[in-house]
């Protein structure tokens, strides 16, 4: 049975001056699944995530998250969402615990200290809760950002390069935690990543973007088969380089409409 869509994007466009960053994309993300938004630099991933979070106003199109019109009523659904992104940071002079406490209060948690304690244990942050955020390593900061993103037990979680600066061990633990969280909470995750192993492991669906367009979509296995490749890494390279664009063969990058 098909799950209902948690995110529905219809003919979404974003134009900056003379550049079309997102050029009329439509897709749906099934509730309770993990979907990857893939594409090279400038493909429109972060722009799309920003519009989904309502920090960027689209030029045209519509976005529905958890049944709410995100462009008209973002505050109805923002308490049920969260995100991490390498483009934002947390106040560096506040300790990790203080940062998490501020966001726990912003999201209205009744028992903030308990939740911070849980996440600190899960993300191995107990030892750094009293340290200023600015003194942490890149990997520790990424874990704090993930902890911040999970404070409100989000139903929709948007992750922009969530494990980019983590070593393989910590990265693996984070993926395991996110998979467990997703399975137990039935959270919907939309993830922009350049780590194809991560995508193959975590994602039920993949949306391939290029030059602001959705050029393909399917499960990782479907895409690997469709492109006649062995890994998502190879599929990614094919899509990013436009392999098969001019060919009349079996690899038809195409605009996808949900």
């Amino acid at each position, binding site marked *: 049975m098909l799950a209902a869509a948690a995110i529905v994007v219809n003919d979404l466009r974003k134009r900056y001056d003379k550049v079309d960053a997102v050029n009329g994309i439509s897709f749906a993300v099934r509730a309770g699944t993990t979907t990857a938004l893939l594409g090279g630099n400038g493909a429109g991933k972060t722009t799309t995530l920003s519009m989904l979070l309502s920090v960027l106003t689209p030029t045209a199109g519509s976005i529905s998250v958890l049944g709410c019109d995100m462009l008209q009523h973002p505050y109805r659904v923002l308490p049920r969402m969260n995100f991490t992104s390498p483009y*934002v940071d947390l106040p560096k002079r506040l300790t990790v615990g203080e940062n998490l406490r501020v966001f726990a*209060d912003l999201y209205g948690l009744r028992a903030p200290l308990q939740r911070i304690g849980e996440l600190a244990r899960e993300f191995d942050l107990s030892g750094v809760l009293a340290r200023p955020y600015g003194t942490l390593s890149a990997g520790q900061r990424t874990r704090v950002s993930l902890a911040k993103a999970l404070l409100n037990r989000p139903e929709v979680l948007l992750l922009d390069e969530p494990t980019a600066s983590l070593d393989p061990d910590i990265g693996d633990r984070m993926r395991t935690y996110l998979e467990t969280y997703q399975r137990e909470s039935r959270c919907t995750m939309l993830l922009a990543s350049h780590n194809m192993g991560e995508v193959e492991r975590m994602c039920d669906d993949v949306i391939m973007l290029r030059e602001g367009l959705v050029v393909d979509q399917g499960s990782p296995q479907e895409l690997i088969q469709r492109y006649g490749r062995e890994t998502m890494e190879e599929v990614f390279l094919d899509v990013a380089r436009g392999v098969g664009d001019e060919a009349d063969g079996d690899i038809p990058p195409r605009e996808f409409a949900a």
Partner: protein
Amino acid sequence: MHAANESSALFFPQTGIAASARRVRALIRRHAYLLLKSWPRMVSMAYYPTVTMVLWAFLTVYLKPTTNFLKDAPGFFIGAVLLWDVLFRGQLGVSLTFIEEMYSRNLGNLFVSPLRLGEFIAGQLTMSILRTLIGVGGACFFAWLLFRYSIFSLGFPLLAFFALLLAFGWGIGLAVSAMILRWGLGAEELAWAAIFLVAPVSGVYYPIAVLPSWLQSVAWALPSAHVFEGMRSVLLAGAFPWEHFRAAVALDVVYLALGIGTFRLAVRHARVHGKLLHMGE
């Protein structure tokens, strides 16, 4: 997904005045953490107002034997400089609170949280009150300690002057924040310099009557000119200047509305141009 009862067990309601107050308190907590752990930061907030006050106090000591005006109102310059600092600190409190978020690259996190724009502004204004109380409060204490001058000798009018200047400072502070959001941290200098544009026409240390007539028209369009003229009225005539008070209230409403409107427009512009996630140091 969250069942409704599970959600209410884990979270406070997200709508209503109590929810807004909680989110504003969270913002205040964020800035209080920063201020309270740094004594140099606290000292620097009171340092400039205190040093300026001391300068004007010694000038008063020097001029008083030869100046009838200062014999009638010996605390005039000290009161003026303290009230001027209410305006300056009020504006800085708003602008620096905003700049702090930009330096931290934290705007993205805040604007994807349930925090509404009005709550964000309320947090900035509350922090402005706290910063002003710390900064000017320190100078007031030293004015009493060193020169036995108490700003509280102004009585009830002091409260009115304080509120009127603070509100004007908020209007300018929000407009400055809007410009920094619009043009980036390169416009940060405005936070320190903007207020001095109104200083010459506010009549802080001299009556508005000394200005050229065309400049007097400009001055009367500022709440600060009415406040300082009112302060002179209280000190020299002992009368509360209701006419100036009403004019200052009306002008404050206009400037505050303009400040809020400008800031809202800047946020809208930032949303259109993708600056909320990408702005920062």
